[in-house]
């Protein structure tokens, strides 16, 4: 119990100190661009957790979820294919290296032409940007499947779909999760960027609109909102990862202690 309290204290200590410092330093601020934290928090509660939650935050998160899900499905399937077949790898690798080198924000104008200015375009931009770390990590993970484990599976007649389900995907899962984590942060960045152009709602759109209409407290609050969202998603990711990779963390601990 005291251990939990101690860890909680350690985790919350610095954020509380930083918020307090911000609060007191800005309390009497008359600078138009640095409003007091109290005003910012008021705006956060009233605007961002008020009407903007349904109008902007939810659409953003939905597009993020759709783009990320699309990237996960495409990257893992393609990654398994590339990681398993030398021919496919030789064929696709140069092309993929080229696409990977393109900074995703540059694609927004192109994708606007191809997919219009609606949600479809934004989902595709998010998916296109965050698929690379997932794809590359999946390829590496699939290629690194242990040869003895692979021979074992073969001698017991475990081939095809059963091999994929019971051997390849679990064996590659630590690497895949590393890619998924990187992909998630890229997806959040692209969620905002995709909303800076030709959008009518969303977090990125609302922050820029607040700034342009000199709603400074609301702009700051939007930044806090994005930080909170990223933090929550990372936390959620950690919970899922710890659950899926419990065997891997246990295995690593066992290997370290022996």
């Amino acid at each position: 119990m005291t251990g939990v309290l101690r860890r909680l204290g350690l985790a919350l200590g610095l954020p509380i100190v930083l918020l307090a410092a911000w609060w007191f330093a800005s309390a009497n601020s008359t600078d138009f661009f640095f409003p007091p934290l109290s005003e910012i928090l008021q705006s956060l509660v009233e605007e961002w957790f008020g009407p903007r939650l349904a109008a902007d935050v939810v659409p953003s998160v939905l597009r993020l979820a759709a783009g990320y899900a699309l990237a996960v499905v495409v990257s893992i399937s393609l990654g398994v294919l590339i990681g398993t077949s030398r021919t496919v790898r030789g064929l696709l690798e140069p092309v993929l290296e080229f696409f990977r080198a393109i900074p995703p924000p540059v694609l927004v104008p192109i994708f606007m032409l191809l997919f219009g200015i609606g949600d479809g375009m934004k989902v595709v931009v998010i998916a296109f940007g965050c698929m690379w770390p997932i794809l590359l990590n999946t390829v590496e993970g699939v290629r690194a499947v242990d040869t003895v484990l692979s021979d074992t599976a073969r001698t017991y007649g475990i081939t095809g779909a059963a091999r994929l389900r019971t051997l390849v995907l679990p064996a590659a899962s630590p690497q895949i999760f590393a890619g998924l984590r990187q992909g998630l942060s890229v997806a959040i960045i692209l969620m905002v960027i995709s909303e800076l152009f030709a959008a009518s709602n969303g977090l990125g759109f609302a922050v820029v609109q607040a700034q342009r209409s000199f709603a400074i407290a609301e702009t700051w609050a939007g930044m806090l909102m994005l930080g909170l969202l990223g933090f929550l998603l990372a936390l959620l990711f950690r919970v899922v990862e710890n659950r899926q990779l419990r065997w891997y963390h246990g295995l690593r601990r066992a290997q370290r202690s022996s």
Partner: protein
Amino acid sequence: MLDVRGIKKVYESKDRTVEAVRDLTFTLQAGELACLVGPSGCGKTTLLKIMSGLLEPTSGEVLLEGKRVEGPPPGMAVVFQEYGRSLFPWMTVRENVELPLKQKKLAAARRTELVEESLAAVGLAEAHAAYPWQLSGGMQQRVAIARAVAYEPHVLLMDEPFAAVDAQTRADLEDLIRDLWHKFQVTTLFVTHDIDEAVYLGQRVLILSNSPTVIRDDLAVDLPDQRDQLTTRSSPRFAELRARVYEQIHRAKTPAAEPVGAGATALPTSADHGSTEF
């Protein structure tokens, strides 16, 4: 039961050709427990991989119950040396043993029965829910053995399964193999580089030469069927058999005129032949 006929394996790479196995022929009778012993680096693992259908021989063939082995045959189970890498670390002990049975499409009730019977037989009745990495090396190898036994194979191949465990555990596991063989009557080929182990375990010891490998000797072990670590190993007959195997292996290591490399003999490559024609 298991016929190995004229197996030859040549590894070809860009600048050298290595003949790992030259010409191996032997037969295992149904229900037999045979040990295959040879100096390290003599191609034991290559032979085992060919027998289990994981590797294509350059020439020759392996027949299991009269049928040519062209991929891993359904009636065969293999226990590898690297226990830490042959169990699925994301599955519990029970799931590891059960997986091949699911693949065989056995009914759930039958699977449970086999898993429980085999884990009890290797002394791990209490470890069902543990993950392999929570167990000691010897226990992990027991799980791999239980998985092989539960599969109800017609032939069980073991590739130096105890090479990586400590001496005490090793003695226990050797007795376990004898017990399982008595209990399940499965035809077993046990590959090892340990002469004592081969003589102690087998009804028959096949002695391999150094690479390129041929069979040097095929020795019947006429020790009593009930063996134990203390009396069997100190009996005069054990010492005689051990000496005979040792002598053969020793001679295998130092062939008369041929210079021998670290593991395998390099032959002139076809490119070399080509150049002599000019």
